């Protein structure tokens, strides 16, 4: 639904490029409020797209929703086989739990990104025929994968019980860690979805990037084993620190592992400042993603 105010707001923004900074900031904020209102108005569509996604995914398979449990468990078994039987020097206590509490969030991230990238282009028949806030497409992909992730967490907790790892009070931080990951994933997904509309190479490149990203993220190893100093051309690098700075997923995964696995002894408290830094980074990524997306989504209707 289009209202006069909304159009007026859009107009004011577009017509006032030469206003003083303060006034521009005011219109920018007004624009953000309008977009959020619009998103709220279409919340039913988000819900429907999420259920559509889940229904379609499971309707045509025999095992249905069980796949979101089996798939990560199979992956876990492969990793456990490789890193305990084939390469015994890895020596991590309760390795299946250690690896599964990183695989699940990674799968959530990876599936969301790959889905978001294609979301605008794949729904071109919608985008160039009806109006709705376009950010709903990547957001609903992330949320559908979130539901999947939450289902898969059941497998993780079953495994924790099976290995008799005592859970600590820190497990209650799980929703906060998940929230940070959702923020980061939506932000990153918005950037990638926009890029793919204009350069279709994005989705091909990102498949390779995601594979590399998997290895640069502490999934089957821990952040702690990374070298604190590494000499390259005479310059010393703190590898562990740089991995955390460059790769927000490393920090997020590390947080999951800290509160769920500890050092094989159930959960441990995460470093407060480390956690806050991860949150701030994710919020910045979301802000950048949203502004890029809003800036370019005006022309999606004619580009796809």
């Amino acid at each position: 639904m289009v209202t006069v105010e909304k159009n007026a707001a859009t107009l004011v923004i577009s017509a006032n490029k030469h206003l003083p900074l303060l006034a521009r900031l005011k219109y920018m904020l007004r624009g953000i409020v309008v977009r959020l209102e619009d998103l709220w108005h279409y919340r039913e569509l988000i819900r429907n797209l999420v259920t559509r996604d889940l229904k379609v995914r499971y309707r045509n398979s025999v095992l249905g929703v069980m796949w979101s449990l089996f798939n990560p468990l199979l992956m876990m078994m492969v990793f456990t086989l490789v890193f305990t039987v084939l390469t015994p020097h890895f020596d991590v206590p309760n390795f299946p739990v250690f690896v599964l509490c990183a695989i699940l969030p990674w799968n959530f991230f990876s599936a969301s990104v790959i889905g978001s990238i294609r979301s605008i282009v794949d729904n071109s028949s919608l985008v160039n025929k009806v109006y709705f806030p376009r950010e709903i497409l990547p957001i609903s992909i992330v949320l559908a994968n979130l539901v999947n992730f939450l289902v898969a967490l059941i497998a993780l907790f079953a495994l924790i019980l099976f290995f008799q790892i005592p859970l600590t009070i820190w497990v209650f931080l799980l929703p906060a860690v998940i929230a940070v990951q959702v923020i980061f994933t939506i932000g990153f997904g918005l950037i990638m979805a926009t890029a793919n509309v204009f350069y279709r190479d994005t989705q091909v490149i990102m498949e390779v990037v995601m594979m590399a990203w998997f290895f640069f993220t502490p999934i089957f190893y821990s952040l702690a084993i990374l070298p604190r100093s590494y000499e390259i051309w005479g310059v010393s690098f703190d590898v562990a620190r740089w991995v955390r700075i460059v790769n927000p997923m490393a920090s997020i995964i590390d947080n999951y592992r800290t509160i769920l696995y500890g050092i094989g002894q159930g959960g441990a408290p995460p470093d407060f400042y480390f956690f806050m830094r991860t949150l701030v980074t994710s919020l910045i990524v979301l802000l950048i993603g949203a502004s890029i997306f809003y800036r370019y989504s005006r022309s999606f209707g004619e580009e796809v």
Partner: protein
Amino acid sequence: MTRPVITFENVSKEFKLSKLRVRSLQEMFVSMFKKELRGKHRFWALKEVNFTINAGETVALVGTNGSGKSTVLKLISRIIDPTLGIITVSGRLSALLELGAGFHPDLSGRENIFLNGSILGLDRKEMTKKLDAIIDFADIGEFIDVPIRNYSSGMQMRLGFSVAVHVEPQIILVDEVLAVGDYNFQLKCLNKIREMQKQGVTILFVSHDFEEIQKLCDRAIWLNRGEVMAEGSTDDIIKAFMDIYQSKEGQDSFPQSGVIPIVEQNMVTSDVGI
């Protein structure tokens, strides 16, 4: 009662020609060396269009192919944004641009009704209330719980039309959808449109069927090459349109589908940045 619900003030829309648009890194690389691929291949699909449509009116948009009719409809429905100018639309809008846009083949008719309703901005409660009326009008019987992919194209269309007209729109955009479908369905649609006219719904109508336009519309706007050529009573406009068409038939000078590349343009492109 003349309350404007749709106004166009100096609206212009510029398109890039998609053939020449860079779509991949390879094309970007090539375009760095090939001059003719570089920029400025654009055309104005609409040029300073002005018109007002008041509440309760039924207005026809006429013009040859490529005159900008569909662009106008897309601008009103916010699928694309104007390059310049102000568009004001007030009221709930339902567009019959493409019936059943957003239907998912793997979901049943019933599920698709809810999905389609939410695309049009309605919540579940409102849709539940209208569900029976929608199913009734679409007249697809037991098929309502069968995945859409098993529907015939006619059934999909009936369902799409039914959803679009039952969301209680205040403005409805109709783009030649009545030309498809069998005779019974066309008749049913026309009756529904007449009913909506009586309820005071504003209707913007695009059709090449002048008989239909004369029966339904109070007023017509004639677009030619992205500009408003004339505006007035339906009979006058159609007469003027036919006069030109018949007098120039067979000649190439008649307004053709208007792709007019503008190499140097001095209009300032507006830019929204949040």
